[in-house]
């Protein structure tokens, strides 16, 4: 779509983004508040950040979350990529409808249901709740998101690239690893990032499936929020936001630079 950008359009975007960002900005601002009261400004201070690093419980939870996130995102990326290949490449096999249902349903399934059902599974098979169960639960949830991201790339994938590789003597397996995988790699990487942040964020499923010694950061934050709003939590949240935001911004800037470079290259190529 392309046309004049009317005043109405600009206003709705500005208001929309203000709505999206103002609460986060306020949260960050008040993490630097001297006063213990979160909503009354008492001067600039970084003391809450200092006390944060002395909070052993929070530090432990951060470590657990990071490990769960790294492991589950990695496994989920492998499984999700396989699922995406299945969805795009095998249009006819027994139980395809069930399969695509199982991939898409978790995207919208209320987390309380997913969490409860996974917990009951772990209990039924006699698996002790803890680090392993949270990780398994997160793999299951996030692999579906990875599948959707990778699948949307695979749909636009030019199959003649694979045919060309085979025509030139590469076996199907070689073709997959030398051609298909490198070409869809950017989508796989963003799938991984999505899986990692989803795991980092999750409260409900983790609460159901986690056990003693495997308290994740959102669980820790939640239990403190229930006791009341404190600047220390604001500080913790700010750090979490900063980490994710920096990651996302760097990734998308790198992406954009590649894109710009590509366009410049293409223009240069056309000129001669």
């Amino acid at each position, binding site marked *: 779509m392309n046309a004049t950008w009317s005043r109405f359009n600009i206003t*709705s975007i500005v208001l929309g983004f203000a709505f999206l960002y103002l609460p986060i900005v306020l949260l960050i601002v008040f993490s630097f508040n001297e006063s213990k009261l979160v909503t009354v400004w008492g001067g600039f201070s970084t003391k809450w950040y200092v006390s944060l690093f002395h909070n052993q419980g929070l530090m432990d939870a951060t470590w657990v979350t990071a490990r769960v996130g790294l492991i589950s995102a990695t496994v989920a990326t492998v499984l999700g990529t396989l699922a995406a290949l299945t969805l795009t490449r095998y249009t006819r096999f027994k139980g395809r409808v069930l*399969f695509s249902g199982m991939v898409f349903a978790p995207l919208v399934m209320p987390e309380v249901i997913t969490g409860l059902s996974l917990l009951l*599974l772990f209990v039924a098979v006699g698996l002790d709740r803890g680090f392993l169960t949270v990780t398994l639960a997160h793999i299951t949830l996030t692999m579906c998101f990875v599948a959707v991201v990778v699948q949307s790339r695979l749909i636009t994938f030019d199959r003649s690239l694979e045919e060309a590789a085979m025509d030139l003597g590469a076996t199907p397996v070689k073709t997959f690893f030398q051609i298909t995988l490198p070409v869809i790699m950017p989508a796989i990487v963003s799938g991984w990032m999505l899986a990692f942040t989803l795991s980092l964020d999750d409260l409900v499923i983790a609460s159901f499936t986690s056990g003693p010694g495997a308290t994740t950061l959102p669980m820790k934050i939640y239990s403190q929020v229930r006791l009341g709003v404190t600047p220390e939590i604001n500080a913790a949240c700010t750090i979490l936001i900063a980490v994710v935001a920096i990651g996302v911004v760097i990734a998308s800037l790198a992406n954009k630079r590649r894109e710009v470079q590509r366009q410049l290259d293409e223009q240069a190529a056309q000129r001669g």
Partner: protein
Amino acid sequence: MSSAAVTTASASPATNAGKSALARLGAAFFGRLVIIIPYVWLLFFFLIPFVIVFKISLSQTAIAIPPYTPALDFSGGISGFVAQLKQLSLDNYTWLTQDALYFNAYVTSVIIAAISTVLTLLVGYPIAYGMARAPATIRPTLLMLVILPFWTSFLIRVYAWIGILKPEGLLNQLLLATGVIHQPLIILNTYTAIFIGIVYSYLPFMVLPLYSALEKMDYSLIEAAKDLGCPPTSAFWKITFPLSLPGVIAGCLLVFIPAVGEFVIPDLLGGSQTLMIGKTLWNEFFANRDWPVSSAVAVILLLLLIVPIMLFQRAQARAQEMDR
């Protein structure tokens, strides 16, 4: 590959046939594996758990580990297993119908989710429309700005609203200071806070499908409509909106379905006075430790959402076909 391969092959066609058959078998196995691994994973970690939830919803609470009975095992042989099966009953479901609390929680959840979905659409559409109309150069940046909050923790974003909506919070401070109101508004721990929370948290889910539907649209369609004598407002309703309908449907389902079972928002912003089924389930499970009843709650919730979920899946499949 070249001539050598074929010369040898033509010299001994049998070997070649055997080799390629083997290669085909290998490829077929590799292909199978691609399907089997995620399939089995999802069957085991997604589908079977529902069967277990259903089974436990028919059990009784017990002071034991696990806290329900029967536990269904084969230690007592086949006859013991059959005896256990006989203990299953619909008691929990009867219980759900007898206590108005559950019924109210379901109805309220659906109503809240529906209203929030409409509100999210009303807020999200102008944003998506504005983005789709933005100069092509800044569109990727706008898109990233919409996605960015989605990457930051859901819990944190909901938490941020507590400080704003509290009686002594930032919103009331602002309104009191500017003289718009003289008494602090009570928003936190009401349904209004839940609406704000859902609209805020789910906005990206609405904007993204709307944007991708609107962005694909050829603006010359609008110009053609105007050229044919259609005023702008009616061009919007007759051309733009119908063409964005797939995005509207996808966005609404993406908001509505999870919102019905939402827990964090009603818990943090809704307080103890508001009733939503996700919170009921959570309390049933964590506070009352009544696994069978919470399972029954989950089963009914799933039945309630099965139609929208299937609609969502169909919409996804159709969008996929169109992209192909």
